[in-house]
């Protein structure tokens, strides 16, 4: 920063060498020094040191600005003090102007001290929304952010990141991931409801198998529509093993939790729900059953309670056969088909005869089990026998698939691909090899240790070698897929590409988890946890690894932002969220730094609905409607109509209004002059605006009503009220500070507070109490300016409703006399009064927006940018978009100071 500092020092030098330059100091010491000197800083202002040049330049600048505003309108020195002669005042003001311009020019275009900032709570939630496509309100457990700089939460300098933040980042990350399923085939898929965890490979496969089974189940419903439903329902379950399992379940007391275990007791696991259904079908009153099944049910119920396993099996088989016969005799039977690795459909009965039969493998990966219900149709391998039209037909899995609509088929194909992708047959081979060689509890995915290998003889080791090679290749392939998926996601989350070193770290977390037997999904999430808790995600400022650093230009103190840094700065400014793919693509090709491209992107982005993020964060934090849904100020007994849903609608009103202002490029002054607002039925009813229905916010024209713009907004009016009464003071301060950008000193000690309710014990109304208050000279200094503005809003009650009279029936007098002698009556006059100061409003808007965009307090050098923004906006209808564009194009926005490390 040497350039800036040197210039300042030079100015100070010139000033002290010039004899006449002592005059300003003499004036200030004499007329201001008693209250605003180094020893006693009334209103936290040390005017003497400021004029002496003894303060840091930004403090000096701010002090001069404050002094100038007070001296110019002769608010200072106060009337009870010695009067400052007009000629001296003029010379002092001119000197201050010049001095401020000199400071500003010496620092023009300085990007300023922008400290790296973490995501605010809102930005965190928005970023997760854009990454997942889900509205999870992620990070709602994070601590609230404070405000700083120009009053915004996004100022890095003032943010803390504590142990508690980190705990909550970890919680939030876990919560986000509970909505995710990752597979090597379909990548990351987000679900609005939380998903079961699938920690082990078997669990992951079972989930896919369940979905496949479900798919077939759904298909069947379509196919049998209008057929013999009763028979399908019952015969569909017909299977000897189910008869047996239902019996055993009865013995277990029909405990629903026992079902899964029971179902898995069989070489080919049964469907738990079907066991239950079978049981209830047969255990219930036989009269409801189709005639031909009644006998079977009766037989089943007659079995004694203490059958041995063998006896049970043999009885079940026998009964099953009679079922089949019955079914065949009537219309058909049920069969199971399996789909093998080569996607052949195999008859379940054949399968049992195969020599390589391995129950677990069939259940888990080699085969997708499909319960195929019989229907009228031909056998798969036999053409429909024309001569025997009554013959029962079977429908194979293949036939169901063929018959399914194309979109359904695509879904099934995806599921099958997913199953194949996570089948990891080689890992299963390793597990089963270890199981047959002394490791009964071997875990899929875990390779034998060297100690274990030593226990094997040479032949076994040799037999194992190809299996191990296959497993390692399989693992490497999956890790490679994970790496690609991770790189793509982390690039979006971190808003920049990852360097190999970073990606290696993430993949190492994946492979470590895999080696302990984690499913692909679980291992991927271990790495994803690090993506979400990394500073690269949590800091809004893009943190670039050194690898990206460009060669520094000799001696320059600032540097342009990298394209990625710029993309993020832009998206957080306009959307309070991460860049989208289009922005990232332009960053990748470095085109974003071309001014035309940057401008085109800015224009695209402010028309995007994500601009709502800016409306809530910038507009809402500035004007006070952000978070209003949780506002609990009004006394609940006095104002029962102030419900949470009303408060929510008031916040939405502010957001919708501001969003519309930006997206539809309205003039800045519409903030106060708009003849429209946004409301839903509840809010419109509260405001007395007719004809609005429904819960959605709608644009409402407000001609002829006191609404329109921020001055009529419930959130603003209620937040600036006391629980039981309005506060013309708070409202006036709000208008002065937020809309007109004035800086008011804190109230002095020894102020007489106003009554809590509308009148004090002496029966004086707030308006009367305020008038008394202003009669005291030291109060009047500020309150002559504050109170009139607030008093014009008196027709709005503490919850923002319109009122003609107070609680005691006294008519509301919303009159106020300005110091200029002008009288304002009611909100309409206030609007006109403010509209006349459009330059001031535009200036305040620009200042606030620049502070928000940069995430810092304004610096002296920024005043030149603000001036040129004011000028252009005045020429071009005060369009909001112009302010946005000028900020984006400014050096302050596109550059940053270089750090020592970068020089």
């Amino acid at each position, binding site marked *: 920063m040497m350039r800036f500092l040197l210039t300042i020092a030079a100015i100070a030098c010139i000033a002290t060498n010039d004899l006449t330059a002592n005059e300003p100091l003499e004036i200030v010491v004499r007329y201001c020094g008693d209250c605003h000197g180094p020893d006693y*800083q009334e209103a*936290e202002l*040390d005017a003497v040191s400021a004029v002496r040049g003894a303060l840091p330049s930004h403090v000096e600048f701010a002090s001069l600005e404050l002094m100038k505003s007070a001296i110019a309108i002769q608010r200072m020195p106060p009337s009870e003090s010695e009067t400052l002669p007009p000629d001296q005042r003029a010379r002092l003001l001119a000197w201050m102007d010049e001095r401020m311009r000199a400071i500003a020019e010496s620092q023009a275009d300085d990007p300023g*001290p922008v*400290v*790296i900032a*973490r995501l605010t709570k809102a930005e965190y939630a928005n970023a997760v929304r854009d990454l997942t496509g889900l509205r999870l309100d992620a990070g709602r*457990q994070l*601590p*609230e*952010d*404070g405000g*700083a700089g120009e009053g915004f939460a996004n100022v890095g*300098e*003032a943010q*803390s*990141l*504590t*142990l*508690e*933040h*980190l*705990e909550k980042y*970890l919680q939030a990350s876990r919560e986000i991931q509970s909505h995710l399923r990752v597979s090597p085939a379909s990548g990351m898929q987000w679900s609005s409801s939380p998903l079961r965890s699938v920690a082990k490979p078997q669990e992951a496969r079972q989930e896919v198998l369940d979905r496949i089974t479900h798919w077939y189940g759904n298909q069947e419903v379509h196919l049998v529509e209008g057929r013999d439903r009763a028979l399908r329902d019952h015969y569909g379950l017909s299977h000897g093993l189910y008869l047996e399992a239902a019996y055993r379940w009865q013995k277990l007391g029909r405990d629903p939790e026992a079902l899964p275990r029971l179902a898995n007791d069989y070489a080919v696991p049964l469907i738990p729900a079907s066991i239950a259904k079978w049981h209830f079908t047969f255990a219930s009153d036989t009269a409801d059953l189709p005639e031909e099944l009644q006998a079977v049910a009766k037989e089943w119920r007659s079995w004694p309670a203490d059958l041995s396993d063998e006896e049970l099996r043999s009885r079940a088989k026998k009964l099953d056969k009679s079922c089949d016969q019955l079914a065949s005799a009537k219309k058909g039977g049920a069969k199971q088909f399996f789909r093998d690795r080569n996607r052949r459909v195999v008859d379940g009965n054949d399968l049992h005869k195969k020599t390589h039969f391995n129950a677990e493998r069939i259940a888990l990966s080699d085969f997708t089990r499909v319960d195929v219900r019989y229907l009228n149709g031909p056998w798969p391998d036999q053409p429909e026998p024309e001569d025997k039209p009554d013959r029962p037909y079977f429908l194979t899995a293949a036939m169901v698939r063929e018959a399914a609509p194309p979109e359904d088929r695509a879904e099934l194909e995806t599921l099958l691909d997913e199953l194949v992708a996570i089948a990891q047959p080689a890992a299963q081979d390793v597990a089963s090899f270890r199981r047959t060689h002394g490791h009964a509890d071997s875990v899929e995915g875990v390779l034998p240790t060297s100690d274990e290998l030593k226990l094997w003889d040479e032949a076994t080791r040799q037999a194992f070698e190809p299996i191990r090679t296959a497993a390692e290749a399989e693992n490497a392939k999956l890790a490679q897929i994970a790496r690609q998926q991770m790189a793509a996601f982390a690039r979006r989350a971190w808003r920049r590409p990852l360097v190999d070193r*970073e990606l290696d*770290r*993430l993949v*190492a*977390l994946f492979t*470590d*988890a895999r080696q302990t037997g984690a499913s692909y999904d679980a291992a991927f999430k*271990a790495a994803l*946890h*690090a993506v979400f*808790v*990394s*500073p*690269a995600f949590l*800091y809004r400022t893009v*943190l*670039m*690894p050194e690898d990206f*650093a460009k060669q520094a230009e000799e001696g320059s103190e600032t540097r342009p932002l990298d394209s990625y840094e710029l993309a993020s700065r832009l998206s957080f400014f306009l959307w309070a969220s991460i860049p989208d793919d289009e922005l990232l693509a332009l960053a990748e090709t470095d085109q974003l730094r071309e001014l035309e491209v940057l401008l085109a992107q800015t224009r695209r982005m402010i028309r995007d609905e994500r601009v709502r993020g800016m409306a809530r964060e910038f507009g809402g*934090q500035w004007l006070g409607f952000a*978070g209003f849904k*949780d*506002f609990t*100020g009004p*006394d609940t007994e006095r104002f029962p109509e102030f419900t949470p849903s009303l408060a929510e609608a008031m916040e939405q009103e502010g957001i919708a209004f501001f969003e519309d202002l930006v997206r539809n490029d309205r003039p800045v002054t519409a903030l106060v002059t708009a003849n429209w607002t946004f409301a839903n039925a509840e809010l419109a009813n509260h405001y007395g605006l007719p004809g609005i229905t429904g819960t959605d916010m709608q644009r409402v024209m407000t001609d002829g009503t006191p609404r329109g713009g921020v001055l009529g907004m419930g959130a603003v009016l209620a937040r600036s009220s*006391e*629980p039981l009464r309005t506060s013309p003071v708070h409202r006036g301060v709000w208008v002065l500070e937020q809309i007109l950008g004035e800086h008011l000193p*804190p109230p002095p*000690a*020894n*102020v*007489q*507070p106003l009554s*809590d309710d509308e009148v004090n014990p002496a029966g004086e109304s707030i308006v009367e109490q305020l008038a008394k208050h202003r009669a005291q000279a030291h109060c009047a200094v500020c309150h002559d300016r504050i109170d009139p503005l607030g008093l014009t809003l008196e027709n709005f009650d503490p919850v923002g409703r319109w009122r003609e009279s107070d609680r005691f029936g006294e008519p509301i007098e919303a009159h106020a006399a300005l110091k200029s002698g002008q009288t304002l009556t009611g909100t309409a006059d206030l609007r006109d009064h403010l509209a006349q100061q459009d330059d001031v409003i535009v200036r305040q808007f620009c200042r606030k927006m620049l502070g928000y965009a940069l995430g810092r307090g304004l610096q002296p050098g920024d005043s030149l940018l603000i001036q040129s923004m004011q000028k252009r906006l005045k020429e071009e209808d005060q369009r909001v978009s112009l302010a946005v564009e000028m900020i984006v194009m400014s050096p302050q926005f596109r550059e940053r100071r270089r*750090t020592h*490390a970068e020089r």
Partner: protein
Amino acid sequence: MVQKPIPRRTVLRGLGAALGLPLLEAMFPRTSLGGLAEPVVPTRYAFVYTPNGYWQPTFVPQGVGKDWELTPTLEPLADVRQHVSVLTGLDRQFTPGTGVHAQAGACWLTSSPPDETLDGGFPTNITADQILARQIGRDTVLPSLELSCNDHTDQKETRYFESVSWYGPGYAATTEKNPRTVFRRLFGEPNGDPAVSSVLDAVLEDASDLRGRLGGVDRVKLDEFLESVRSTEKRIQRAEDLARRWKEPPMAEPAGIPRERGDYLRVMGQLIAMAFQLDVTRVATLVVDPERWDSPRMYHGVFDKPQNHHVLTHTKEEGARDKLALIDRFHVAQYAELVRLLASSQEGSQSLLDHSAVVMGSGMSDGNRHNYGDLNVLLAGSAGGKLKSGEHHHFDGDVPLGSLWLTLLKTAGVERQSFADSHGNLSSLMTSS
């Protein structure tokens, strides 16, 4: 051979019972000869901050030493007065340049001398509680606990109002406001997932990597992050150790922020007491309310309407002073309850209070004049026999508040020559031992 102590959890049932329970001998390791090993009981420190000073005429007692009379404000201390010392006449200095209220709270415990304006004009170097946490909090699940009973979520004041606890210049601790969240931090599941440690390792490497291009303040900011990651790693480890000792949490989980003010402050006190007793943390701060918080607040059972504490301090009419005195008294009563809770909780042959120092105070004496001099402090417990109890100490002349903090640090074994603008202990508070 040292026998395995009984997990304390097995004897705890609910808060009321738990705090009445004596510390069983079996909780101390036994030596092989059957004698009890000398238990090393840690000392705990709690700092309760109330805003906007105290109404002096009803607060400051007559008489010093043991013979001080309970004033209307201090009356709720009647049954614990033998444990509580009243300190009056301690002083701090205001540093011009920042708000007088903000500085009162933010710099109450600061180790910065008044002219050390490190943080945008604020002397907010590391605070006494955090120095204590570094000294005695290293082995507990949470090095320190920072609580606040300000449930307003408005952004109207900066963190200088919200926190009395600072890790360093510009680096405020986050205060936790919801008793339920506090409970979960103290007694809930540790971060569970064993993979978290390796995740954090990876994240630490990321962060160290990214420091390269940063300089100055940016680097300091990122170091806050690094520090949080390291503490979290430790915390997970300790919480896992601790969780092995409990089968269930030691008290019922609070439902959220209680509606009534007294209940809110009480449950926060209970959480502190429980955390102390189970040695989950040894240092706690509680911000009863932020300075100059102009949202009126209900003091249930004291007034039937919400009151604005700050505005009352600047109100001249007689009724306002009575109200201030009642608010002060309300806060003293809440403090007395915490003292009582700790005093009734046995720890070895003594009480938990005997092994604690529990402070309540404000950064101003007279809130109307924003007077940083003549501060009032209540100090309960003997910090393991090192502090005298039950006396009124009045300090004439310029005696820095920092001397009190230096004295407390000494009782915890922190050797410092100076603290803020103090260069000596308050030896009159200390027992001769």
